[in-house]
């Protein structure tokens, strides 16, 4: 008994050490990737700005100045004003709050459903796995873009539904990645050891499987956020996503596109904000993939 325990603890120690150095290695590699670091810093900056918008924004969200109307960038309004004389910088900041929130929350929904689903399917295996993954296959083949448009039409355009609908689309790939990770981990000796020691499946998944499957999940999560944000902007552009009085980058771009001939800055600045964010997230995701050495995260 004592020998078993000591070898088990030695095993654990070794695993812990390997884990730590794996993450340290990954961090070292990531730090050398200038694009990824730049993306990460930009993203962090945007998140901080979004969180502090009510205090940082130069004007209040509702403030109008109809006498001023649309004016190009100036000292008083760094990014100009729109046709109602509203400050574009303020609009872009508040729009960013919504766009980023949709990106992060919908991705979190996808992460939660996908990881749970994939972990159960991969861990239990057998017929349960076959049925669960069959459901994923069928859902995968559905044309979801069209379905989201349909949902927004049928149930009205509300933000909560938007989160759910987008999250419900994106969890499928997450489930597939998680399942394949769990399946390969399940055969590892340290998991078998944990099973023979009588750890409950939930504890094994929490303590052994999830930490080891974290790499691909992190990479895929980082790459899911931009595609979610793109989806939100796409729907908002068509008028089926975020509705006034709320705003988002997609909605601002759609307004900007209507009046771009006279007031191009109304299109360019929200567009720049969205593109920069998507760039940052994609570079960070690519950098993380290389750093964590995750291969073929798409499937």
């Amino acid at each position, binding site marked *: 008994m004592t020998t078993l325990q000591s070898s088990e603890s030695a095993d654990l120690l070794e695993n812990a050490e390997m884990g730590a150095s794996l993450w340290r290695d990954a961090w070292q590699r990531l730090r050398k990737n200038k694009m990824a670091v730049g993306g990460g810093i930009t993203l962090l900056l945007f998140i901080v700005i979004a969180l502090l918008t009510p205090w940082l924004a130069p004007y209040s969200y509702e403030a109008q100045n109809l006498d001023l109307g649309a004016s190009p960038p100036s000292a008083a309004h760094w990014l100009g004003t729109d046709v109602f004389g509203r400050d574009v910088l303020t609009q872009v900041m508040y729009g960013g709050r919504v766009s980023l929130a949709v990106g992060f929350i919908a991705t979190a929904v996808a992460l939660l459903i996908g990881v749970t689903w994939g972990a159960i399917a991969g861990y239990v295996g057998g017929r349960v796995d076959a049925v669960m993954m069959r459901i994923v*296959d069928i859902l995968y083949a559905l044309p979801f873009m069209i379905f989201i*448009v*349909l949902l927004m039409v*049928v149930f*009205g355009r509300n933000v909560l539904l938007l989160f759910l609908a987008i999250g419900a689309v994106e969890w499928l790939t997450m489930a597939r990645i998680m399942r394949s990770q769990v399946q390969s981990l399940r055969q590892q000796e340290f998991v078998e050891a944990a099973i023979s020691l009588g750890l409950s499946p939930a504890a094994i998944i929490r303590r052994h499987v999830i930490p080891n499957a974290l790499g691909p999940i992190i990479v895929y999560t980082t790459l899911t956020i931009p595609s979610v944000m*793109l989806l939100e902007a*796409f729907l908002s552009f068509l008028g089926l996503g975020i509705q006034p009085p709320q705003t988002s980058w997609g909605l601002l*771009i759609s307004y900007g596109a209507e009046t771009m001939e006279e007031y191009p800055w109304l*299109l360019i600045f929200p567009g720049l904000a969205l593109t920069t964010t998507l*760039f940052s997230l994609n570079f960070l995701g690519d950098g993380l993939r290389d750093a964590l050495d995750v291969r073929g995260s798409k499937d």
Partner: protein
Amino acid sequence: MLRFIISRLLQAIPVIFIVITATFFLVRAAPGGPFDAEKVVLPEVKRALEAQYKLDLPLYEQYFAYLTDLAQGELGPSFKYPGRSVNEILFSGLPVTAELGFYALLIALIIGVTAGVLASLKPNTRQDYIPMSLAMIGICMPSFLLGPLLVLVFGIYLEWLPISGWGSIPGDKILPSITLGAAYAAYVARLSRAGMLEILSQDYIRTARAKGLPEWQVVSKHALRGGLIPVIAFLGPAFAGLLAGSFVVETIFQIPGLGRFYVQAAFNRDYTMILGTTVFLSTLIVLFNLISDVAAAWLNPRLRSQLSGGGK
């Protein structure tokens, strides 16, 4: 191979059936009847209208009536445009969207494959970085931003190209096709680069080089076929994306295609039109996924022998 096609076809049927059923009940569950918006409709008139559109029947009977019509290829009348059937509207928009999608795909394949292959031949040099950075821009620049920007630059400032329409002024097809195709060119470039890099490190490529074949022959005869399999497999999902993209591009450029009709139907709450278009587009997408899967399997010698070998 045949068995593979049949099994994929059998998988596609329940998917299409789920789409039809889910769409039907979703649309019926929508709050507000289609004629509620009409200013003042006499109760008798409303009843007559509902009878005409079979809305007075119980739900399951409506469903079976719809399935029966659908089996005969009949998508029903439009709620919004009396006297026009959904079939008519779809088939007037289909050729336009098909042409737009075809040009966009052509642009995506020509530019994407060229850029991807060039990048893969000299990885980690300028010949790799420049096209791949452009591809990243293409991926991060959504069509609803790229379109207006192209219009602004080439249509309004430079006045080189028309800014809207389809087939009425020469050159008016150029900007929409580029707008729709750009993102896919970027994806294709990344996929073909990755695919080619993998193939170029294989033994049979070394053999071909050792035989003394000139490099362009090694690439065109031996590497391309394998290296482009990921691109072929991507075409199925890309088709779905192109259709969704056509919603935006046809709206921006005011093109009378399927995508614009769909968005208009969504705004008008033209339920039969939404139902019909969703069923139609979904079926198309499922079929395209099937075709691209079969093509990718057929191009991959290892997979093909596995499939036709009959081994289970």
